[in-house]
Each structure stands twice: as C-alpha cells, then as structure tokens.
C-alpha cells in the first residue's frame, strides 16, 4: 500500500515544478442566415425540429451545397488571424456514429484546411505590467454542428443513467468554424490567463468581423482544452483533452484544475493518460472520459458530394478589404485617443463595453464619464440581471442626455443614477423618467434658502461655527439641505447660498 498522495497540488506550486503546454480547439457557431449546407434558418431557440430539411436531417438522397457567406467568413477570420489561405482545398467526411449527427458523418475539413499557419497576439496583465503572448494558429476550418440531445429519465439529467434521449436537429448543420492553436509553451504561471485571454481575444475578433455574435450562454463558442506538463528541460508531456469548456471562466478553471491534477499525478510518480475529459461548469472540474487508446477511427475521405474550394487571389483581396479595424489595433488607438492606460482600457473591454463607450463618446460625452457609467453603475445592473451590457435598455444617447443635464445643473450624480434606474426599469427615456419621478434638481433659490434657514435653526451651534469662520463646518448644513430636498439640490449651489446667507467668504 502506498501512502495517500494529494489529488491536486496548488496551481502556483505546481507551476514552480512543471512547465505547462496548452492548445485550444475553439468551435464558434457562425452568424449566417442559413445553415452550412442547406437553407434552413440558424436562429437560436426555435421550436424543436422546425428548422430542418432533407439536407440537415440527412435524409436519403439529400445533398449539401456550401454556404458562400460561411466560406467568406472563414477566409476573413483566417486573414484576421494572419493565416495562409489555401489555394485549393476540400471538405472531408469524418465518419462516426452518434444519434445527434444525422448522416453519421460530419462534413468537416481534414488535411486541407481553408486557413492555416497564423497567429494571434494576446495581452495578459502581470505584476510587471501587460505582457503580449503570441498564440500560433495551426488551422481554421469549416464544419457543421450536430443536433441537440436531451437526456430523459435517470437521476441526473446527464447521459449517464438516462433511460433514453430526445433529439432536436435544429442546430444540426449550423456552420461551425474550428480554430486550432499550435501547442503554446512558455506561459508558466500565466498559462490559465493566457488561455482565457486568447479565447476572449478570439471572441472579440469574431464580433469585430461580424461573423458571429458569440453568445456563450447559448453555447455558440465551445472549447476543447489540451494541456500537458513537463519538467523543465524535458520533452512535452502526455496531454489530456478537456471537452465542453464553454465560457471564459471555464477556460481558466479547466486549465487550472488540469495543472493541479496532472502535477499531483506526476509528482506522485504516476503518469498522465492521454484521454478525453469532460468539464463540468457546475463543479468547475473535469472528469475522466474515454481514453484515446480506444479512440474512433474516423475514416476521413474527401466529401464526394461537394467540389473543391479554390479561392482566387482576387476574391481573397476583396475579402481582405472588408476587414474592419481589429480589436488589438483598436485598443491601441483608443488608449491614445482616450488618454488611458492599457489597464483602464482592459476594464472597459472586460466589461464588454468597448463599443458602447466608443459610441457614447461619439455622442458627445467625456471619455471618463462614458467609461464611469458603463463600467460602474450600468455594469453592476447588467451583472445583477445576468445579461450583457448591450442588452440593457440604456443607450449612448441616454448617457449623453444625462451628462448634459448634469452639466447644466439640472441633475446631480445621485439623481443621474436614479434616472438610469428608471430607464432600466422600463419607465421610459431619460426625460420621461425625470418627469415621472420628479427628479429635477431644486434650483429655485427661494426654496433652497428656506431649506437652509430651516437647517440653520435646527443646528444653531453649527451655524455659529460657520459664522465664526469655520467654513469647513458648512458640510453638515449642506448635507441637511440635501436630505430635506431628497437629493434634488445642487450641493455646490447650496454651499454658495449658505455662505452668502451667513456673510462668510470661502477662504
């Protein structure tokens, strides 16, 4: 009997002992109107089996026809990732049986991907400041998604233990883009951050290109994480492949947990099995699956129902000319334009607020104010509701209006917050909320003076202090006035009126 070894070694400790190598296979559903090989719509959330036709149901006799936009999107992604675009390539069939796959083969690409050999630079924050890591891209190719299985009966609702399963083929045939990295070594303690930053960067890239809106909560971006550890100076270790990693947070957690698990295994003198592992979002860990020794033989061969793709140089140049400013270039530009640090920009990016802040600034709002609203109050509200910032009913125009009202003294910061609260609650636009909630700043001097007099009477000792020149005591009176006007007063104005009333000058 051996002594019990720990099942995991803490992340940082593990990475003091081992060097990690990771690779990512990312599948993204493209935002085309129709599926990869048929005209069925791709909209998410339709009634089961209503977005199907003979082709995507794999009915006998049906034949695929390639969606031009999917090819163009793939080429654009390839160009944005600095890839070589194949002069000639084919689709291949990947043969394996599974009930969510209508033809029992997936039309994919095998040894002739449309795009290959590119890279993506990602920036991670370190104690010493931002660090740029280059992630090399092995390939980018097109394929089709499978149907969706629901497991029924049994205790857990998972495959294991289910009595039977139900299949909805609406998702079958939706264009998928698969982006595969080369093995990334040398990230050390940053490995989890780099992996996560890479996926985040890819997501931003997809959105910038307009090829996918990458709604992770709908499963439109899915990652497989390969990870291995080796002793410094030793060759690459045996890798595991963790599937089902479907959020940015999970990418980080999948890497961390695998570093912790493999390092414990290796330290205990065990070996890492080349296997497929399944990541469970709920527990933040993966469990062992089928080992690769029993892996399927996919019997790839060129898809005979489709003809080769041979993009001309002219076509590629045309597509290149449609590339928008890419996220990394955009970030550099905005840092300069807005006069902010990479860290400050990262806050905006991480909040998913880049476009919103940009539009808000375009609407005439100061950079600092635009950032403050989107990454502060509004982000909290979105997080509370579990939605994206962009899905809030607040628009850049709303912020511009509020800021204008603050500038002319009609609103103060506290009231502005209440205005957004009202907009988010669906009470209408900025002016409607102000009207219905009665949120205007009290600017009537008579009313304010009355409130000031009231406060001076209530706090005679404070009044006396101010009169005697202790101007700093004014705050207590201003506070009382703000309270009595339910915050609807301009504090600076109250202060000025108060001092004037008492005949004291602001030293």
């Amino acid at each position: 009997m051996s002594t019990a070894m720990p099942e995991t070694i803490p992340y940082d400790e593990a990475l003091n002992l081992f060097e990690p190598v990771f690779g990512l296979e990312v599948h993204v559903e493209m935002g085309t109107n129709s599926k990869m090989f048929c005209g069925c719509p791709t909209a998410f959330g339709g009634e089961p089996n209503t977005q199907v036709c003979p082709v995507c149901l794999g009915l006998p006799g049906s034949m695929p026809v390639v969606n031009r936009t999917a090819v163009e999107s793939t080429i654009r992604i390839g160009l944005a990732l600095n890839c070589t675009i194949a002069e000639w390539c084919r689709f291949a069939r990947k043969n394996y049986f599974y009930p969510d796959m209508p033809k029992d083969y997936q039309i994919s690409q095998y040894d002739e991907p449309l795009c290959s050999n590119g890279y993506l630079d990602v920036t991670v924050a370190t104690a010493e400041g931002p660090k740029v890591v280059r992630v090399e891209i092995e390939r980018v190719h097109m394929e089709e998604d499978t149907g969706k299985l629901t497991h029924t009966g049994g205790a857990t609702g998972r495959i294991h233990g289910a009595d039977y399963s139900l299949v909805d083929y609406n998702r079958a045939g939706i264009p998928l883009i698969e982006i595969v990295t080369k093995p990334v070594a040398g990230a050390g303690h940053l490995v989890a951050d780099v992996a996560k930053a890479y996926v985040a960067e890819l997501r931003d890239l997809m959105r910038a290109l307009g090829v996918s809106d990458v709604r992770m909560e709908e499963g439109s971006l899915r990652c497989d994480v390969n990870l291995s550890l080796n002793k410094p100076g030793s060759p690459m270790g045996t890798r595991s492949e963790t599937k089902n990693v479907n959020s940015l947070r999970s990418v980080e957690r999948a890497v961390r947990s695998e570093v912790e698990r493999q390092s414990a295994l290796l330290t205990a003198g065990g070996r890492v099995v080349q296997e497929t592992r399944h990541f469970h979002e709920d527990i933040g860990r993966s469990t062992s699956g089928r080992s690769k020794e029993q892996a399927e033989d996919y019997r790839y061969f060129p898809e005979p129902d489709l003809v080769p793709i041979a993009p001309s140089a002219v076509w590629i140049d045309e597509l290149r000319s449609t590339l928008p400013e890419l996220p990394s270039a955009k970030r550099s530009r905005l840092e300069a334009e807005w006069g902010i640090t990479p860290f400050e920009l990262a806050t905006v990016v991480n909040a998913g607020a880049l476009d919103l802040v940009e539009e808000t600034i375009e609407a005439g709002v100061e950079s600092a104010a635009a950032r403050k609203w989107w990454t502060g109050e509004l982000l909290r509200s979105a997080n509370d509701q579990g939605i994206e910032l962009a899905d809030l009913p607040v628009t850049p125009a709303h912020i511009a209006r509020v800021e204008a009202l603050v500038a002319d003294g009609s609103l103060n910061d506290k009231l502005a917050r209440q205005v957004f609260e009202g907009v988010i609650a669906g009470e209408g636009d900025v002016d409607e909320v102000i009207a219905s909630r009665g949120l205007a700043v009290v600017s009537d001097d008579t009313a304010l003076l009355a409130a000031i007099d009231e406060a001076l009477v209530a706090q005679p000792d404070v009044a006396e202090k101010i009169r005697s020149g202790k101007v700093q005591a004014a705050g207590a009176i201003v506070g009382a006035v703000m309270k009595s006007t339910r915050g609807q007063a301009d504090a600076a104005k109250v202060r000025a009126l108060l001092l004037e009333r008492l005949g004291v000058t602001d030293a």
Partner: protein
Amino acid sequence: MTAITRAEVAHLATLARLDLTETELDHYAQQLDVILQSVARVSEIATADIPATSHPLPLENVFRDDIARPCLDRAEVLAAAPAHEDDRFRVPRILDEEV
C-alpha cells in the same frame, strides 16, 4: 497485402455498427480476403507521381447564397421516425464516456 483476419473483421463490424453473427464473421473474413487480394492490384500502378482523383469532373467553387428557405413540416418528419416524444426524435439511452 496482408490477409484480413477474423479479428479485423470483427473490428470492422464494430466500426460499421453491424452486429454480425459468428457465421457471418467467418464468411466475411474469407470473402473479404479474396476480394481484397483481387482489388489490391491497384497498388501495382498507383505510383507516387500520380495525383489522386476524388471528383470525376474538375468543378470548383460551387456555392449557394446565404438565404434562409422554408423548412419541412415537423409532423411529416416525425411521422417517419421510429419513435418521437415532445416534438423530438426519441433514441435509446446513450452509453457515453461521461462518468
């Protein structure tokens, strides 16, 4: 070319999802061996310098426009299914790798 063994035939049957009987395994092992020996002659002239042909006609770049089209009627589709439930195809339990 190496002769095909009965074990290989059994493996192929698994890959191809055919629940072959013992008799069939014997039968196919023998027949496939004969057929393969005959067809294996192709390698005699398939030298490295000859390109492979996967498509009989030199067509390239055949695409469709990204336009959504009407779908099949669900009732008609499900009526052809061996089993369905809740508007979905019902399939037997899946023995998967998940634990």
